[in-house]
Each structure stands twice: as structure tokens, then as C-alpha cells.
């Protein structure tokens, strides 16, 4: 196994493109090093990008924030402005692991690892976050929702990697929230999860709603019908019930050691309901 710290993004892209064996990018290493130790994968090439310009920085851009792909959960959690704007995104990232894991783990790593249960992903999806992707042929911007393609898989081409994730500006009267269900209180993997991002008008009527669910399908799902069920009213019992039905209909989980189909479906709806009410409160809405 070779460990390389390339001098530039371009050099990294070329290196990754030309590697004939298995390659991995080393961000926090909290997935990749664990897989190495468990002998699940033995990469021929490990590319460390953390030292490259901007990788560990959070910068304001067009009213939103550009977050370097190597920014750790702990670093993000200490950034008051991002937290104030996208509390749901930050709480998703901060749920990952423990304090030790937080000091290393990144949201880009969480996204690229391709776990349907990744805690950083659903709220990035409802925030309409965009990943900046560097490749051998240049740079492109890809909506976060289009990155994971299935368990352990992503849509990046050979030689491509993420350099930053952009969280757009948030309109007035808006709020988001992320909740997950785990059997323990921490150090666990989501059995189901839900992120909700709401925008309200002056009266507290929902004008825009995005709802994403995790761990209940091969990838995180943005449930358009669920969002639509909340738009045009306050999230009263009827609206919430319609939203929960849409969420449950969008679930296609598996039964495994972590939970049954019924359990995952039911709890995804419960979490979406609870997250919607919290997001509504954060947006300044009152029931």
C-alpha cells in the first residue's frame, strides 16, 4: 500500500486516475481505517488531501457557506454562523460517533462512503447542498443527492473527488432538523432517520418543505410528496398525518439484524413528524 500526499488537486486527480489497483481517499479515516483494520479492504493507494488549500476551511460565499471536504465534525460544530443557518445539517454531522470520532470525521467522507444510514447526508439533501468535484479534466458541481448511488457506491468517476460542500443561503423564516433512531443513545448506526427543512411565510404557513429519509432505502431519499403534504398550511395533525403517509410509502427498507421492514418504516414516519415540528419551531412557526 502506498500513502501519497499530492501537491495539488490536479496531481491528486491524475494519480487517482492512473492507479490500476484499489484506491481510497483519506479524509478523517474513520471509515476507511476501520475497514482496513477489519480486513474488508486493502487499498493499493491511499491519497491524503487534508493539507491542500481550502480543505480544512469554512468560508462564507454568496450568503451561504463553502465547507472544505476535510473539515471535521468538531470544527463544523464550533462554527456558530453555520450552526445558526443550518442547525439540522450541523446536528446530523455532530451525531456521528463520539468526541474522538468527531475530531476526525468529515461530512464529505460520510457522503462518499455511501452508507444509506450516513447521518450527515439527509440534512445536506434537504439543504440542497452541492458538492464541488475535482477530476482529471477539471471541476464540476454536483448536488449532494446525486452523489450516493447505493450501499458503498457513489457516482464519482475514476480520478474524481470532492473538494468542498456548499450550503446555500437560507431564506428568512426557515428552519431545519435531523433526527435518527438508534437502539442506544450514541455510538450506533441509524436504523432509520429523517431530515426536514421548512420555509414559512409571515403567518407561519409552510411555503416550501423538503423531507429526506435515511436507512430505509439503498440511498437517502428526498420524498417530494411528503414535502408537498406540508406546503400551504401549518403542520397541523392532518398535514402531519398526510406527510407521514407519504414518508411511509417512500420507504423500501430491508429486514436485517438492525431492524425489520415494519419497524424502519414506522419509525421513519415518527422521526419525520418529530423533525418537522422541531424545524417548524426553529423557523419561528407557532402552532
Amino acid at each position: 500500500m502506498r500513502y501519497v500526499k499530492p501537491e495539488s488537486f490536479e496531481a491528486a486527480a491524475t494519480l487517482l486516475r492512473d492507479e490500476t489497483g484499489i484506491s481510497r481517499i483519506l479524509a478523517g479515516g474513520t471509515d476507511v481505517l476501520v475497514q482496513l483494520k477489519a480486513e474488508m479492504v486493502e487499498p493499493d493507494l491511499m491519497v491524503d488531501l487534508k493539507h491542500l488549500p481550502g480543505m480544512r476551511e469554512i468560508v462564507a460565499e454568496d450568503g451561504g457557506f463553502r465547507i472544505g471536504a476535510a473539515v471535521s465534525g468538531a470544527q463544523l460544530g464550533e462554527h456558530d454562523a453555520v450552526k445558526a443557518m443550518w442547525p439540522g445539517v450541523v446536528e446530523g454531522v455532530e451525531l456521528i460517533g463520539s468526541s474522538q470520532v468527531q475530531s476526525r470525521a468529515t461530512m464529505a467522507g460520510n457522503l462518499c462512503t455511501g452508507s444509506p444510514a450516513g447521518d450527515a447526508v439527509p440534512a445536506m439533501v434537504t439543504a440542497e447542498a452541492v458538492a464541488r468535484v475535482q477530476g482529471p479534466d477539471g471541476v464540476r458541481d454536483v448536488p449532494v443527492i446525486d452523489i450516493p448511488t447505493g450501499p458503498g457506491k457513489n457516482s464519482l468517476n475514476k480520478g474524481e473527488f470532492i473538494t468542498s460542500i456548499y450550503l446555500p443561503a437560507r431564506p428568512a423564516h426557515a428552519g431545519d432538523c435531523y433526527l435518527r433512531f438508534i437502539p442506544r443513545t450514541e455510538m450506533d448506526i441509524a436504523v432509520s432517520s429523517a431530515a426536514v427543512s421548512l420555509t414559512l411565510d409571515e403567518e407561519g404557513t409552510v411555503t416550501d418543505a423538503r423531507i429526506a429519509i435515511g436507512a430505509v432505502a439503498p440511498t437517502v431519499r428526498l420524498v417530494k410528496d411528503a414535502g408537498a403534504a406540508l406546503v400551504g398550511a401549518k403542520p397541523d395533525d392532518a398535514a402531519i398525518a398526510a406527510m407521514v403517509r407519504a414518508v411511509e410509502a417512500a420507504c423500501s427498507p430491508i429486514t436485517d439484524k438492525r431492524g425489520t421492514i415494519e419497524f424502519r418504516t414506522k419509525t421513519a414516519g415518527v422521526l419525520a413528524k418529530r423533525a418537522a415540528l422541531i424545524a417548524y419551531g426553529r423557523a419561528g412557526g407557532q402552532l
Partner: protein
Amino acid sequence: MAFDAQPTRKFNVVGTRVTRPDGVDKVTGKAAYGADISAPGMLHGRILRSPHAHARIVSIDTSEAEKLAGVKAVVTGADLAMPEDADFADVAINCLARDKALYDGHAVAAVAATSKAIAKQAIRLIKVEYDPLPHVTDVDAAMKPDAPVVQEGRALENVPAGMSQNVTTYCKFGHGDLDAGFAKADKIIERSFKTAATHQGYIEPQACMASLGNDGRGEVWCCTQGQYMVRANCAAALGVEESQLRITASEIGGGFGGKTSTFIEPVALALSRKSGKPVKIVMTRDEVLKATGPTISSSMDIKIGMTKDGRITAARGELRYSGGAYPNFTVEMGAQAAFAAYDLEAVETIGWNAMTNRPKEIPYRAPGAPTAIYAVESVVDELCQELGLDPLDVRLMNAADKGTLSSYGPTFNDIGLVATLEAAKAHPHYTAPLSENQGRGLSCGFWFNFGGNTCVSLNINDDGTVGVVEGNPDIGGSRASISMMAAEELGVPYDKVRTVIADTSSLGFNDITDGSRVTFAVGLATIEAARAAIKEMCRRVAKIWDIDEDAVIWEDGCAKPAGPNAGTHPPMTLAEIAAIAGNTGGPIAGHHEVNADGAGVSFGVHLCDTEVDPETGAVKILRYTVFQDAGKAVHPDYVEGQMQGGAVQGIGWALNEEYIYGEDGRLQNAAFLDYRIPVASDLPPIETVILEIPNPGHPYGVRGVGETPIVPPLAAIANAVSRAANVRLTELPMSPPRVLKAITG
């Protein structure tokens, strides 16, 4: 040895909270655990394990592995002896399989190489041809007459004919007329329960370093609860004499019963014998979960009859345990413990063990009792609910006490159950208000406790300090407690005494650190050894003073004249006597060897409040209080630690821990992500109340405290959850999907 006839004895050291002797080493990383021991020229061992739940091993081709540069030895089951004794043979076969792989993870071959990386590569070059066989992992399925047979011809003679060959053990305990008893009941409840196998979850994986020469002499350093047990198992598996093996126990990172057998030491010795080099083996967590010993899994039926005012009229239990792929007797302890807390006119408990394609069960704190008592205490709680009775009053009304003919035969001596129940009733926890979706549960717990074979040497050093040499690895603070008892008896300060754990060649045989025996039995032997040393010191002083031996007494750490007739000699301190021992007859020591009886059974009562989320089935433990009779708490911090630790492990067992097998018979969760022991944030502070009802069998009244606290949590939590969720839960663990399913139907 009896309780000292000095009920008003004032202890100076015993009962205080002195600094633990191993604390600094452990928090600074200096303590040497199993994997910390290395030797020059040492090789790294690695074990190849079966991917099949059950398979005939057709052939093992090790030639490619042997050819790899850096590989110094490859061994299979054929490199171990086949001991005649069935128990030793089972251990050896479990260390390296012979004709069959009996479970997913069963060791089939091992290599020793100059690096870990080469050992890993070599393992992949071993070719094993398997002929997969049908498997069975569920105890009820294994008992069916047509179930796949795990091992043939292993049933004990009293197992009725016509059952599956997997059924190896049958037992029956009890007394009285059941039919008459049930006829007197106003309400009878009969329920079936199931519990999953759980693992001890010690933080330190098994590790050893072993060396065995052509001359048949060997050394093993390993993390174990019993170096003499390791010696016996290794001697049998290697076909060498015990005198030729010296086993040294390392510092131990948790055991809880799980380190009372051997898995890797015979393999490392076989690799060493073949390679001529020391060999180290360190298990991974995956190996620990797959191939060391979890508890039994169980299926149980309990039937109890009660009058409307709460008197139990009859009780019957049938327990079906599986101790994995080998014959197992844990069910006998479960069957004996099931109804031990009750004074019953008619009671019967029947137990069965059935083999399954799972790893060999190894004891876990109070083996067999937590599951049986979970089932019994669940039914008692449901009867209380149905009859509208207070669950503590019902237990008090039926509690076993001194003179009770126990459900398993013996008549109880002084026991602390009633006092423990009364303490629970008087505690503010019992009457604290509860809110919606919350419930309070309670359970009694019982454990036999054990004494056993014990040797202690106590040396009076020439500088007036004291060295205690004992043979039981310290898994719960025993070095502190033993030093305290020596200091107490000798009348010297605690910090003048150091207790060390001997290797097998330095002290006579000791039973394993198990059965909550060490503070009781080693403590008792230490007190006797101290008394022997005191006697000798008095004899020496009598010589100096030129008076009768009987005229010298020992008081406050000094030899003194017994009375005015003995003359007016100034007291001599232990240090003064030690300094001139060479002139009075040579070094001074005391020792004691005993097979200790009178361990004294132990009872506990746990109270637990839970809140159940009716939409997700999630259970939160809100409040938890442990009441337990310790006889005499030598070091209260450690006693509380045992009570809290048992409760925590019980919480894990009750809520989330389980061995999950797939259709293919393979273990699906051999890692701490999906084998869920509780994390700190899952737990409330565990309150403790220690009671001290002296054990008549120990000079200071000590009872073992290490195992009882894991017995009540399963039922205490199940009862709390059942009351909070308004539905009776009958299967462990009560994981959220299971609880939600029970609620939503």
C-alpha cells in the same frame, strides 16, 4: 471456619475505602495485560476459523502456507493430544477442531510467522475442504427428534430415550405436592420466555505468549481468571506434565467468567513446540465474539399459583438451555436458582440442555441464574398486577429466610433476603411518583457463591512489611481486599501490605477466580495465614522474654504480655520482631491451605424505573437502585462497583445484547457496533444500598458479591417495561423493534 464470636468487633481497616493498589498502573498504561508481554525471537500466531456453522472437515492442506517465507509452523487439531477426560477433550477440540467444525468461528488451523502480516497471508494459503452439514442454532429446534445432530453419543444416562441426541443433560429439583398446591391457588399464570445468548463483553481480548521446548518445559503468560486451570488444560492438550508448565497470569482487562477456560494457550504452545520459538496470539474482537464463550440461550416455561392475598401455593419451571456445541451443565444452576428466593410448599424445576451449532458456553456472572430468575420474577410480577397486590409485599410474604427448605434442597442458614426487601421498601425510590409511559419494576436475585481450593502464603518481611502471595487473578479488586484483611488481622496499616498473584510454580493449587469466591475464600485463608504468622511471632517473643508461649498475646500489631503474671515486658511491634527474626529461628511466614466451605448464599433486590416511547419502542432507564447483602463489605467502593457493574451488564442483556444468527447459521453481529453493550449515556447513576448480614462461614462475615448483581436486572427491567408499555414482554432482549411490536400488536 466460623464467623468470629465477636459480634461487636470494631474493624480498623476492613470497611474503609483505601486507595486501590493497581489504579496508578492502570491509568498510566503501565499495567501489563495479556498482549503486553513479548520475548526475543517471538513469532506471531494466527488462527484460521470455520466459515460454516457445521461441516465435516474432509482435508486440510497446509503445504502452501508452510512454503511461505517467514512461516515457522502450522498446526491443526492433529498436533494436539486427545485427552481421555471428556471435559479436557472438549477444551482441546474447541481450541482446534478435529473431524468437524461445530460452529461459525471454530478454530481449524493456526500458523506462527515472523510478522503479523505474514501470518495473515499464510492463513489464506491454508486449504480446508469442508463438507457442509445441516445446522441448528435454536434450542427448541435442537430438541426436536429430527434436528441435525451436533455431536453423537454425548447424552448423560438420565436423559430419556427417544429424544434428539442433542439433549445431553436432564435435571429435576423441588419438593411438595404440585397438584395440591395449584388447586389452592386463586390465580395461576403460565408463560413461556426466551432469552438470547449474550457475551461477557470484557474489554481485553484473550491474549497469550507461550513457549514450549523439545525438553517438554513450557511457559505461558496469559490473561486468565485461573492460571492453574490454564495449566491443566494445556497439560492435557499438549500431553505434558503439569510440573513442566509454568503459567503466569497477566493483569486482566475484565473477565466476568469469560476467562475461565482456554482458547489460544494450547495453540500457542503447539506452535511453539513446532517452531522452537515463543509464540504470541492476540484475539481480535471478532474472534472473541465468535469463538470464546457467550452465555447459554434459553427457552423457558413458568407456572405459578397464588392466593388472592399473595401467597404462592405452587410453582413449576421447565428450562431449556443451550450451552453451544458441547454438553453443558449450566441449566442445573439455573434450575436450582430459579425459585431460591421463595419459601414454597410445592415447587418443581426441570432442566434440559441441548447442543446447538454455537460456540461453547463459558460462565458469565452467576451462570444460569439470570435467565431462570427473569422468567420466574416476570410471572410473579404479572400475578401481582392481576391480583392488584404490591410486588414488594408479595415478595416479603413469600421470602425465603433462615430455616427455609430451599427449592433446590438445602435448608438456608442466615440469609439477608428479608432485610434486603425491607430496605427496598423503605427507600424513597420505591414510592417516587411516575409519569405517563413510565413503569417501575422489581426483582429479587440469588446466587449460591462458592469457596473452593485455596492456598495463601503470608511473609513477614525483615523491614516490618508484609507480603501476601495468593493464586487468584484479581478481576474485581481482590488484591486490595486481601491486603486489607491481612492488615486488619495483623494490626498493621494497609500500606504495609502488598498482595501479589503467584504463577503456578510458586504456590499450591487454587481454584479459578469464579463463584464470587476470592474475597471470601482467599480472604479467609489470608486471615488464617496471618493468624499462623501471629502465632509464630508470639512464640518468638515468648522465647525472647523467656516466658510461656501462651503468656504472649497479639494486640494492635504488637506482641504483649498476656497479663500481670507474664511480667512487665514492653510490647514488641511486628517490625521489631521481624528485624531480629534471624536470631530467633529464621524468617517468619504464615500459610494456609483449605477447600473452603460456608461461602454463604447471597440475595439482592433491584428497583428500576423505565420510560417507553410508545411510537418507537425505545426504552430509557430513568432510575436504578441496587440493594444487596454483602455479609461484610471489606472495601465498600469495590462492593458498590460490583453492584453497579452487574446492573449495567444486566441492562445490556435486558435491552439490546444478543447473538444473532442468520439462516446460514453464521453469527451476524460479531462486533461492538451490532452487539450492543450499553454506552455511558444509556445509563442513569446506579444507586447502591449495601446490607451487612454476616455470613456465618467467614471470620469477618464476608459473602461473595460479584455475581448476584447480574441476576435481578433482567426481570426488574422487564417488569418495568411491561408496566410502562402495558403489555407483558416475554423475550430478551427487549430491543426497540420487539417492544414496538408488542405495543402495536
